[in-house]
């Protein structure tokens, strides 16, 4: 079989025709709702393999020939992303389905508060970043046709007179026409293109089969796998020459992992065209397996090509030139079709994805802003405008790619061009990850971050690719702009030890991520952004009332008008009928509820993107973008959360306080328990002394029969006295405990304390006489009124005065008593000229059973309960008893009782 350029071109056209037929049939098939096979997870997986472009088909071989194993990184990155599908892709697909996301620009715009600016930015940058990638496909197709034409003995055939640039232009034009025919026949609901996906799946099978066929041929021709490798080693080709696992390895693996998420066409096939989330399960292993199969023969083909092809032949074309050189025309044609497949599938899908972004994020917003009412007046106005915008953008995108190809045509390798594109689209990765995982990432920060990353990319990756065709770029590369050497594109800030690829990846992503993080930390989110962020992050949590939706009033007619313009007559009609049926109202009296408006918005978003749908509907729905009530409700929800957390905090504070109180109470209990023990042991001790005496004397009386009368009398007298003491002790103890427990009923009468003092003086006069003590009353109050028990007060005064008498050991003992009114208090002061109370004992004299040194030394030793009882009694009468410093050397007690000012007081 002889290959000529004409034959190759004719075959390509026929192949494209076949693809078109497949797409057409598939579309019809799914329209009849019988899409069974086309919606299988395997077709889905095959469509994802649009990732393997002619870069893989031709470029990977070239890359393997130049840098050994490095080409696999382009497939290892995506392998890891798919194996970890649960963590990123699953969320992405789920969120995009529930939010009707149509593109990567739509995803970011929607997450960051339906920001129109972000949508425009991402779209523009994607178009620029993809240009080199499309150029790569053009270059690959052109080179492959050239390779066949160059090898053909019939010369260039009808290509006579076409140079490389002209050929590439022709290819670009053909592709544009083809893509327009394919992808813009209608504005689909949800932007799903079943026909295109079917064609892409077919192409995936063709390119894989072709590459494997060439691989098998190489293994066969090279004498087995071992033969190929040892042959190459014998020819002096050593794969250990290159630094395989260096910075480039890590850099390109990271890039490829980012690209499988960020490339517009990958987003289109993986996320937008996904019809069932469970398909991702199959793709998680099947797509890596596909890439493995694609990579398996790359190294043998490259090594075999290096071994047998003449020096200087283009390694990118080995896949094609090896069969050609062996005279295998049929295989070469198959290989060409494989390469052509991989290029066309990429170009079709990429330009469809980009054109959707351009029309939804640039054209529609412009149309809405400049109110092209005349345009949208007709029923199909918006739809026609959308289609037209998409067609124009497809042409634009392809010719941007052609422009890049034309400017860089002198550089020869394919793979580096692709990596430039990868670095460009990787700038979306930080924002996408933030959209999925970081609630506080803000739109302003995302815009700044993507712009920053992109500027660095333009400078460090994109610009250097023109170095071969532009002397001024080459000068900037060598010297830096205006001779500023630290701004050299491939050695920013003097970092020149990295490979240029790793250098560009590092600086652009570093700047991008830093700006995103710092920006989000210092800026605030708008209300809508806040709501959208919550929707994206809580992927399983359904929003209770769909916040962020438009609230307000709109007539059904207005809504229907909008819906018909965008969705088309039939779908709009279906949507409204469904609503009418659900609410049970007639078409004519249909009242659009907020829920319905929200549903309509999402439906529209499926066609024109979230931001545009939002703007479009908010024009019709009066009430503003976010109504006051909505803001209030959102504030309410926030408030509720805050209140809830505050309530929790309060409860825990209460618990803590309770625990503290319990602890204090416990401490107090233990203290009281200790006091009780002490009290008991003191009581036992006090009771024991008289009991011992009583027992001893009564034993003597019992055992000694012949005691004389006086001894017996004296013993009985002692027993009697000790019994009295015991009784009075027990009385006092009972008194103390009753007072402390406070369960005795107290009479609270108004009385004149002076009468109690009189009574106490009468009782104590006898004792004073007996002791030879002088009682001197120095001052008296005429009359006063206090509330309490008069007898008890006498008891206190008797106790105090008798103490002063009993413990006074001065040569001429004197006790001074005076009563007076001190402000609201009635006071009685009792002082003596005795030894006084040593300072060390003063704090303890009111303790139960405490007797000072002096007390113990005298014959009148009491139980040490007098003062505690007195104090307790006064306390019950709201009074106090204190030891106060006195002028003389002795002790001075002062008791105070509050005066009753009541006029009824009569004494």
């Amino acid at each position, binding site marked *: 079989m002889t290959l000529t350029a004409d034959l190759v071109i004719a075959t390509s056209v026929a192949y494209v025709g076949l693809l078109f037929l497949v797409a057409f049939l598939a579309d019809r098939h799914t329209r009849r709702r019988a899409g069974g096979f086309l919606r299988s997870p395997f077709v889905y997986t095959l469509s994802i393999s649009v990732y393997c472009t002619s870069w893989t088909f031709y470029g990977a071989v070239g890359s393997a020939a130049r840098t050994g194993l490095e080409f696999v990184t382009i497939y290892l990155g995506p392998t890891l992303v798919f194996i970890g599908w649960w963590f990123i892709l699953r969320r992405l697909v789920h969120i995009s389905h529930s939010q009707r996301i149509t593109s990567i620009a739509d995803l970011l715009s929607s997450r960051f508060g339906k920001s129109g600016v972000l949508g425009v930015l991402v779209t523009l940058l994607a178009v620029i970043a993809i240009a080199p990638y499309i150029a790569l496909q053009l270059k690959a197709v052109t080179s492959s046709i050239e390779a066949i034409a160059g090898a053909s003995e019939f010369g260039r055939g009808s290509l006579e007179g076409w140079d490389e640039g002209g050929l590439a232009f022709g290819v670009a034009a053909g592709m544009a026409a083809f893509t327009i025919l394919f992808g813009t026949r209608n504005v689909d609901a949800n932007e799903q293109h079943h026909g295109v996906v079917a064609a892409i799946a077919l192409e995936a099978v063709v390119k894989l089969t072709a590459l494997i066929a060439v691989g098998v041929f190489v293994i066969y021709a090279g004498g087995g796998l071992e033969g190929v490798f040892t042959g190459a080693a014998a020819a002096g080709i050593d794969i250990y020459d290159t630094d395989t696992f260096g910075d480039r390895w890590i850099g390109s693996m990271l890039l490829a992992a980012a690209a499988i998420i960020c490339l517009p066409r990958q987003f289109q096939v993986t996320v937008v065209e996904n019809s069932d989330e469970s398909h991702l*399960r199959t793709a998680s292993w099947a797509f890596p397996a596909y890439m493995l199969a694609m990579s398996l023969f790359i190294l043998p083909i490259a090594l075999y090509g290096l071994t047998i092809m003449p020096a200087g032949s283009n390694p990118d074309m080995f896949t094609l030139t090896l069969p050609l050189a062996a005279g295998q025309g049929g295989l070469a044609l198959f290989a060409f079709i494989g390469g052509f497949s991989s290029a066309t599938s990429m170009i079709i899908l990429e330009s469809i994805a980009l054109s959707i972004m351009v029309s939804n994020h640039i054209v529609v917003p412009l149309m809405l802003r400049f109110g092209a009412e005349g345009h949208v007046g007709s029923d199909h106005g918006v739809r026609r405008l959308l289609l037209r915008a998409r067609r124009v953008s497809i042409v634009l995108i392809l010719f941007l790619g052609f422009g890049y190809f034309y400017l860089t045509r002198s550089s020869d390798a394919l793979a580096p061009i692709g990596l430039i594109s990868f670095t460009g689209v990787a700038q979306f990765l930080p924002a996408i990850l933030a959209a999925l995982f970081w609630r506080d990432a803000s739109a302003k920060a995302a815009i700044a971050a993507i712009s920053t990353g992109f500027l660095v990319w333009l400078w460090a990756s994109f610009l250097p690719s023109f170095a071969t065709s532009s002397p001024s770029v080459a000068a900037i590369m060598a010297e830096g702009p205006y001779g500023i050497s630290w701004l050299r594109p491939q050695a920013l800030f003097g970092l020149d030890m990295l490979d240029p690829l790793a250098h560009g990846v590092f600086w652009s992503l570093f700047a991008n991520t830093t700006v995103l993080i710092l920006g989000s930390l210092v800026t605030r989110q708008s209300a809508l952004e806040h709501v959208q962020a919550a929707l994206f992050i809580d992927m399983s949590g359904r929003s209770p009332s769909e916040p962020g939706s438009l609230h307000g009033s709109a007539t059904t007619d207005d809504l229907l008008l909008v819906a018909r313009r965008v969705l088309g007559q039939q779908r709009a009609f279906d949507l409204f009928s469904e609503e009418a049926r659900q609410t049970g109202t007639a078409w004519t009296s249909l009242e659009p509820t907020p829920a319905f408006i929200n549903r309509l918005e999402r439906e529209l978003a499926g066609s024109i993107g979230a931001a545009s749908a939002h703007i479009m509907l908010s024009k019709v729905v009066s009430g503003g973008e976010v109504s006051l009530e909505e803001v209030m409700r959102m504030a309410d929800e926030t408030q509720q959360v805050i209140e809830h957390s505050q309530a929790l905090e309060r409860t825990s504070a209460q618990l803590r306080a309770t625990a503290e109180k319990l602890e204090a109470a416990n401490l107090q209990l233990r203290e009281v328990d200790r006091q009780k023990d002490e009290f008991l042991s003191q009581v036992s001790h006090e009771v024991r002394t008289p009991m011992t005496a009583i027992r001893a004397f009564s034993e003597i009386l019992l055992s000694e029969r012949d005691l004389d009368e006086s001894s017996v009398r004296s013993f009985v007298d002692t027993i009697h006295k000790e019994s009295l003491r015991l009784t009075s002790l027990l009385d006092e103890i009972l008194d103390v405990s009753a007072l402390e427990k406070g369960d005795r009923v107290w009479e609270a009468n108004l009385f004149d304390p002076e009468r109690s003092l009189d009574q106490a003086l009468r009782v104590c006069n006898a004792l004073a006489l007996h002791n030879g003590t002088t009682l001197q009353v120095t001052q008296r109050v005429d009359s006063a009124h206090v509330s309490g028990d008069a007898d008890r007060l006498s008891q206190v005064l008797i106790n105090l005065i008798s103490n002063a008498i009993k413990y006074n050991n001065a040569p001429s003992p004197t006790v001074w008593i005076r009563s007076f009114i001190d402000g609201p208090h009635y006071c009685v002061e009792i002082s003596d000229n005795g030894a006084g109370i040593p300072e060390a004992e003063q704090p303890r004299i009111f303790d139960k059973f405490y007797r000072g040194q002096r007390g113990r030394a005298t014959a009148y030793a009491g139980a040490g309960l007098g003062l505690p009882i007195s104090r307790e009694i006064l306390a019950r009468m709201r009074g106090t008893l204190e030891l106060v410093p006195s002028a003389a050397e002795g002790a001075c007690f002062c008791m105070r009782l509050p005066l009753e000012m009541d006029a009824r007081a009569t004494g």
Partner: protein
Amino acid sequence: MIRRKLVAAALFFTLFGAIAFMPPFALLFRTNTRVLGVPLEAAYIFVVWILLILGARWFSRVLPDDNAAPADAQQDRSS
């Protein structure tokens, strides 16, 4: 295995896959030896790749069904 552990296992499976492909781990196999003529490092990368695919296949079957998720999506599409 409970759901949480399975998900954690899937995460670590992916992370270890990444580590296996990267230096310094991959450098262990950069010795000048050949297996059936194929350099050891190339053979290593492909073997790990195959193991990852097999592992992913297992995980794709055992990872829990996100019941709420597909239901939501279904409802969204039909609405």
